[in-house]
């Protein structure tokens, strides 16, 4: 299985029936394809809709329905639309149950850096700062390292998106919970050792007494 698909599948297991969910661009968007059967979530898109459906089929794009990446999408029955101030009222007001986003860096306090790399062209934070502050639960879904260099750190070195907001980190190597005591590895990918996860992580991991193997069958 592709790394990204593996991460997306595991992240989808975090969703509960009825959750209002906002998915970041890229890998997090793939989570929508793996929502467990019997579970209905409402996907919000910060540009102004709730009830995001599948990507529009080529040739069937509706120019009035786009997502936050500018892509043409569909909506499900019960969807609705609103302007940007109301959309971020939903987000900032704590009405989004879960947001799943990518990251450049996360640290042991749950600090998040996912909007700019120093000395590179700055794309702007878009809605990321609002989302991670406003959502009840923030899950980072990303590859464990960036071509071998650590992304999970003692302390973020890139400019922060927000302070102490991350609840969980889901990677190709494991599932980590952000706790008051630090980062706790609660699940590990099949065929990976705890030592390997630790070596790929820039801060000390607490290993759960009840460590499980990720099951995305």
């Amino acid at each position, binding site marked *: 299985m592709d790394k990204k698909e593996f991460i997306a599948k595991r992240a989808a297991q975090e969703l509960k029936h009825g959750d209002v969910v906002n998915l970041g661009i890229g890998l997090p968007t793939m989570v929508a394809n793996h929502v467990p059967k019997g579970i209905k979530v409402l996907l919000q*898109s910060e540009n102004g*809709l709730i009830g995001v459906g599948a990507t529009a089929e080529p040739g069937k794009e509706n120019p009035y329905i786009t997502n936050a990446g*500018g892509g043409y999408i569909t909506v499900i029955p019960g969807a609705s639309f609103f302007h940007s101030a109301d959309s971020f009222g939903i987000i900032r007001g704590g009405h989004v149950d879960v947001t799943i986003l990518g990251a450049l860096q996360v640290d042991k306090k749950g600090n998040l850096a996912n909007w700019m790399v120093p000395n590179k*062209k700055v794309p702007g934070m878009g809605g990321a700062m609002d989302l991670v502050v*406003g959502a009840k639960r923030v899950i980072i879904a990303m590859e464990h390292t960036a071509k071998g260099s650590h992304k999970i750190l003692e302390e973020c070195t890139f400019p922060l998106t927000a302070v102490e907001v991350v609840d969980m980190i889901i990677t190709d190597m494991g599932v980590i919970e952000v706790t008051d005591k630090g980062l706790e590895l609660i699940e590990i990918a099949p065929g990976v050792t705890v030592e390997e996860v630790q070596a790929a992580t820039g801060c000390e991991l607490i290993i759960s007494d009840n460590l499980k193997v990720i099951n995305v069958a």
Partner: protein
Amino acid sequence: MNKVTTVKEAVQRLKSGDTVLIGGFLQSGAPETILQGVLNYSDAKDLTIVSNDTGTSEMTTIKIMQQGRVKKVIASYIGANPVTGQMLMDNPESVELSPQGTLAERIRCGGAGIAAFYTPVGVGTIVEKGKEKRTFNGVDYLLETNIRGNIAFIKATIADKEGNCFLKGSTKNFNAIMARAADYVVVEAEQIVEVGELDHELVTIPGLFIDAIVQSEGQNG
């Protein structure tokens, strides 16, 4: 109170030094017909542009910027417009980045007579630079001030001749709030209808906010 006019006429209201609110979210609901009018019929310069994203390389805001007519940008995401990115690198003071929800709320407050508000977004980041931080019920918030424009350019799906506008689907985005936050508001509409043809319940923007209506020549959406 028929507010329908030509693009050429409408863009004459843009003056050098103006703050211009430009609606849309990337290509969605962007007022491209009006912006083409600015490119062709206006020589206003020293502009401050307020826009979620300043559009993409294929759109018109970048062309106005390439003419050297924009001195400042306020936006939340500029990754699709390399000229804005370059402006930020050349002169960090010329591009103000605001979190998207904060930007939206600043504009809404500009239209609603609220001077400033406290948001929890941006605390502990570079966004808090120069801003008052204050604690309410144990949570830290930043004070953000409102934004108003001298002029706003927005897009509607349908407008009646008095300016009542329906903005379909996700094209409401920044258009619906910018329409309320500028001294003069120009809307381009894909379809212009008689007053009374638009269902009362489908009015996204009441006509009282609109000063001029022009026929959009852009694609749907």
